[in-house]
Structures are given as structure tokens and as C-alpha cells.
């Protein structure tokens, strides 16, 4: 019995945890933490179970909620693509949950001088669980409207989590709220336009209806597609709609950025892929509309803009935020290259980029946790003070640059091959330039971390000065998820062929092969 119910359990467990925390753990931080980690762990296990099921049978899982046949009821549809994303989201959430043990009690209640609200911690965990539920729900659902509702859940809870950064975070979050609402409403309106022409909300059903030639000609459907895509682009901070992201993520607390930064944008990319190929079709988008050239150029611009802006930042988190903007360009560009390699690269990059971003944010978070400083110079002497953290950071950086055998190399490989195949040299060049800029960015930081006591050196007399620096490593609860994430970067890289042939490659829509 449990086997058939696995898809719903993936989301039901975090959801249960969210109000279990409200009901039973309002007083105890530890109980709330334990509930959260337990729920995330279970959800991760279930997600892996679903993925195994799909890998074993090779069939798409349809789970009818309330036992109503689609398109009348809502169904969960899980194929190779979202099985992978489900594992990714629940896995990253699980790791971040462990990571939060020390950071949340240290940061969340004390954002203002003179204001201390310990009750915030359980609330924080509740919202954390809700956010993860929302993201998992978006990934699992097969209903266009349901996706909107879940999008709003994840958005609302992320507003709360981001706002808890305090101070400037409020205004940044407010802007995000306004922009995010515009995005969500565009999506809703787009779904409305589709509904008025098709009468259905179920994605597989919509796909069937939209194949009719009359609808392919209809301007309404085109506008619907445009609204939906624009809405999602706003949500994923695709250039030039990215303005809200750097501020919103920079001022957030450590755990929030670790959770939100890697997952929100990636889930939006997933949404884009899902809607493009499971509601509309490659044929409709690339052959009939034919906007791919423009979009890929836009993606190239996003990559360059993001990378160059990141180069100018002195705040570590803000720098990573701009890198996210660039990475979104990678994925959007990859999808819109309109060939299999590009799409494989983009899909695989969802996985690898989420883990890279997570890895870097975790390492940076640990540095902030120990030094209280988020500027580049917080990294000074970090190789000696926090050896494990710095190794994790270096692995994350190498993946970001795209050095084999980390996963970043392979996704870039596919993206560039896709660009070559599509003869889109601008995108290929943008990718390579961005790799180079990433190399500059990260080696600048590594250099700061590696050359420890520059200014003080004269005073302390020679090389032996920094031998005295003591090791002050982050607590175990932060190191463990960090190291696991870093290892996963290499594992994802080494198993890239298995991942691509087993999962990613199975999701390529027929029109692209």
C-alpha cells in the first residue's frame, strides 16, 4: 500500500511537520528542530523511493488525489524529470535542515537591537517546512492551477523567511513580494487564457487539446504562453527581470539563503521546462513561435550581466546572488537552444547548480557564523582557521568554474555542445566568458583566504606568524551537511552519465531528438 502512496507522502510529511511544530513544539527549539529534520529526512527517503520506482518500471506515475479521474480531479504526475527534482529539493532541504541547528537559534530571534523573540524559532521551522512543501508540491503536481496555489505557498513562506533577515531585508522583501505577486498573477492570467480556450487545467489533458491546429493558430494561446513564461521568468529572476533577487537574498539570514537561493530559482526553471514541454510542445514553441534566438541572446546577456556584476561585489552573499542570476541564464539559454543537448545540459544543471549554490552558501554561511562578517575580507586567513569549510568552499568554487570532475563541468559541457549544435556562438562564448569570470571571482577569494596575515606580517615577523592562528571551525551540525554537499558535487559529476541516460535523457520531448 505504501508503495502506491509514496508520491503524496513526499509532500504530506513536511506539511504534517509544519503544523506539528506549531502544535507541539512551540516551546522547544530542539523539538522543533528534531521534527523538521525527521520530516525532511523522511521526505527525502520517500522521494528516493519514488525515483527508484520510476527507474525500475520506467513508467510515469499518476497519482489521483481523491480518487478522481483527471482532468476532473487533481493528479500528481511524476516522471523521470520531476523524480530527479523531487530528490534534489528534498535532499537539499534535508541538508539545510541539519545545517540550521546552530544558525537559526543564533540569528533568527535577534535581528534587532533590544528585540528578542525566541518564539520565532519554532515559527521559522514551521515556515521552513511550508516552503519545502510548496516547492515539492510545485514539482509533483500535474495541474496548472494547483501549481499556482503551491507557488503562492512557497512564495508567502519565503517572504517570511527572507524578511526575518531584519533591517534592510524588510524593504527588499517587500519589493520581492510586489514583483513576485506580479509574476504569480501573470502565471494565473496565462492559465486563465489557456482555460478559456481549452476548458481544462490538467497538464497532460491540456497538451492533448493544444495539439489541435486551430489552437496553434490562436493568438490567445500565444498570449497565454507569453504570460506564463514571463511570470515564471520573473519568479526565477531571469535577466532583465532579476532586479529583486540580489537584495532579497543578500539580507536574509544564513539558513534562509541556503534554502531559498538554491531551490527557488531551480524549481522555477523546472516549472518552465515542465510547462514548455508538458503543456505546450517543442513544436509549438520552437517551430511556430520561433522566439528561441532572441531568448538565447537574452540568456547570453543574463550570463554576462550576472557574471560581471558578481565581479564587482564585495559582499560574499551578494556576489553569489549575481552568480545565481548568471546561472539562471545558463539554464534558460540551454532550454531555448531547442536541441537535446541544450535541454539535457539545462536539466542536469538544475541538479548541479542547486548543489553548487547550496555548497557555496553553506560555506559562506559558516564563515559568517564564525566571523560575523559577510564581506570578502571575512575570508581572510580562512584556510588556516576553518580548513574544512575552506575545502568545501574550494570544491564549490571549482564546480562553479566548471573544472572536472565536478558536476559543473559536465553541465557546461552539454550546454556548450548544445550551443555549438545550434550554431549559437554568442551563447557559447558567453558561457566560456562566464567560466573565466567565475574563475577570477573565486580565485580572488581563495587568494584572500590563502594569504592570511598580510598587513600584520611585518609586525609579527616573517612566515611563522600565521602558525599561531588557531583553528576555529564551525560546529559539527554545519560541517556535516557542508561536507556531504561538497561530496555530492563530485559524485554527481562522476555519475553524470548514469544521471543523464537514466533520468535526464529520458525526459527529452520527442520534438527535440
Amino acid at each position, binding site marked *: 500500500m505504501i508503495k502506491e502512496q509514496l508520491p503524496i507522502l513526499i509532500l504530506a510529511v513536511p506539511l504534517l511537520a509544519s503544523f506539528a511544530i506549531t502544535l507541539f513544539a512551540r516551546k522547544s527549539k530542539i523539538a522543533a528542530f528534531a521534527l523538521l529534520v525527521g520530516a525532511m529526512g523522511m521526505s527525502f527517503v520517500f522521494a528516493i523511493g519514488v525515483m527508484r520506482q520510476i527507474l525500475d518500471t520506467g513508467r510515469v506515475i499518476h497519482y489521483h488525489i481523491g480518487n478522481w479521474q483527471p482532468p476532473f480531479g487533481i493528479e500528481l504526475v511524476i516522471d523521470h524529470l520531476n523524480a530527479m527534482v523531487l530528490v534534489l529539493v528534498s535532499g537539499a532541504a534535508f541538508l539545510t535542515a541539519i545545517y540550521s541547528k546552530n544558525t537559526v537559534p543564533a540569528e533568527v530571534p535577534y535581528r534587532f537591537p533590544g528585540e528578542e523573540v525566541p518564539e520565532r524559532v519554532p515559527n521559522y521551522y514551521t515556515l521552513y517546512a511550508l516552503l519545502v512543501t510548496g516547492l515539492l508540491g510545485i514539482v509533483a503536481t500535474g495541474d496548472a*492551477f494547483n501549481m*499556482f*496555489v503551491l507557488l*503562492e505557498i512557497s512564495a*508567502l513562506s519565503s*517572504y*517570511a523567511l527572507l*524578511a526575518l533577515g531584519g*533591517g*534592510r531585508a*524588510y*524593504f527588499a*522583501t*517587500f519589493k520581492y*513580494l*510586489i514583483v513576485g*505577486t*506580479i509574476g504569480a*498573477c501573470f502565471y*494565473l*492570467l496565462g492559465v*486563465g487564457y489557456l*482555460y*478559456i480556450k481549452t476548458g481544462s*487545467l490538467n497538464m497532460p489533458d491540456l497538451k492533448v487539446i493544444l495539439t489541435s491546429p486551430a489552437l496553434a493558430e490562436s493568438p490567445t494561446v500565444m498570449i497565454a504562453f507569453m504570460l506564463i513564461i514571463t511570470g515564471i521568468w520573473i519568479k526565477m529572476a531571469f535577466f532583465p527581470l532579476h532586479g529583486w533577487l540580489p537584495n532579497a537574498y543578500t539580507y536574509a539570514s544564513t539558513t534562509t539563503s541556503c534554502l531559498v537561493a538554491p531551490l527557488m530559482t531551480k524549481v522555477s526553471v523546472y516549472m518552465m521546462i515542465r510547462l514548455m514541454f508538458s503543456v505546450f510542445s517543442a513544436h509549438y514553441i520552437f517551430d511556430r513561435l520561433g522566439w528561441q534566438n532572441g531568448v538565447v541572446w537574452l540568456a547570453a546577456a543574463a550570463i554576462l550581466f550576472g557574471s560581471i556584476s558578481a565581479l564587482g561585489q564585495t559582499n560574499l552573499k551578494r556576489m553569489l546572488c549575481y552568480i545565481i542570476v548568471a546561472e539562471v541564464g545558463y539554464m534558460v539559454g540551454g532550454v531555448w537552444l531547442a536541441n537535446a543537448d541544450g535541454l539535457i545540459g539545462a536539466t542536469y544543471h538544475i541538479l548541479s547548480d542547486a548543489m553548487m549554490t547550496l555548497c557555496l552558501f553553506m560555506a559562506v554561511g559558516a564563515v559568517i557564523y564564525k566571523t560575523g562578517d559577510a564581506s570578502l575580507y571575512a575570508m581572510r586567513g580562512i584556510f588556516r582557521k576553518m580548513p574544512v569549510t575552506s575545502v568545501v568552499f574550494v570544491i564549490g568554487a571549482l564546480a562553479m568554474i566548471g573544472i572536472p570532475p565536478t558536476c559543473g563541468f559536465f553541465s557546461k559541457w552539454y550546454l556548450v555542445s548544445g550551443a555549438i549544435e545550434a550554431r549559437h556562438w554568442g551563447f557559447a562564448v558567453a558561457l566560456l566568458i562566464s567560466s573565466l569570470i567565475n574563475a577570477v571571482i573565486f580565485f580572488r577569494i581563495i587568494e584572500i583566504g590563502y594569504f592570511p596575515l598580510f598587513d600584520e606580517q611585518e609586525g609579527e615577523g616573517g612566515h611563522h606568524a600565521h602558525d599561531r592562528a588557531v583553528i576555529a571551525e564551525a560546529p559539527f551540525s554545519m560541517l556535516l551537511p557542508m561536507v556531504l554537499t561538497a561530496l555530492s558535487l563530485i559524485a554527481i559529476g562522476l555519475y553524470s552519465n548514469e544521471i543523464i541516460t537514466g533520468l535526464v535523457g529520458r525526459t527529452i520531448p520527442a520534438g527535440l531528438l
Partner: protein
Amino acid sequence: MNEILTAIIAKYNYWSFLILLLIGLHAMISKNNLVKKVIGMSIFQSAIILFYVSIGYKKGATIPITEHGHGHANEVVHQTAAEMVAGFANPLPHVLMLTAIVVGVGTLGVALALVQKIHRVYGTIEEDEILEKIKE
């Protein structure tokens, strides 16, 4: 003249929805006062709701509730399926919009809470003044 009038009558709901939508969007982007932005957001959302509700309307139909009740299911349905379908407005958009309204009020609450906090931090809710204070 008459044709134009019928054309307008046939579609005017969509046009008024469009006007409201644009008013809301414009206010969300360009208004300086944060509360005004929030009002714009609510208008934007209700415009979309208006659009959906318009989809659900059928000429000559009635509200989507039949007279059958609990335990009366054995009372014979006097209408054929086709008559039923023609006789009731489309319930699905209504359901969707109930959800959308709820989402809207949730967003509204969060937005207003943030506005209050912003006021507490900066002492103002005018965007330009806030930006100036941030620069300092």
C-alpha cells in the same frame, strides 16, 4: 452602429477587466507609497478574478446550485444532462477564484505587515525617501 454595439456588449467585460488590470499593474510599479502599491496589487488580483468569473458566466443560466439536497437523491431529476449543463453557470472558475481570493488576502496581510515593519525601520513608507535613507 448596432453591430459595433453588440460587439462591445459581447466583449466589454474583457475590456473592463483589462482596464482594471492595467490600473493595478501601473500602480504596483509606479506608485511611490507602499500602501498604494499594495492597493494596486489588490486591484490587479481582483481584475484577474473578474476575468475568471467572466469565463464562468453563461447566458441564460443560473447559479451553480441545484435544488437537490441530502437524502433526496431519489427524487427524479427533471432535467436532461444537456439542460443541466446549459442551466448552470460554470462552477470551476468560481472554485479557482475562491482560492485566488484567499491567496490574495494572505498576500495582502503579509504585505501590510512588511509595510509596518518598513515604517518602523525607516520612519517612512515613501519609496524615494526609503531609498535615500538606504544610501546614507
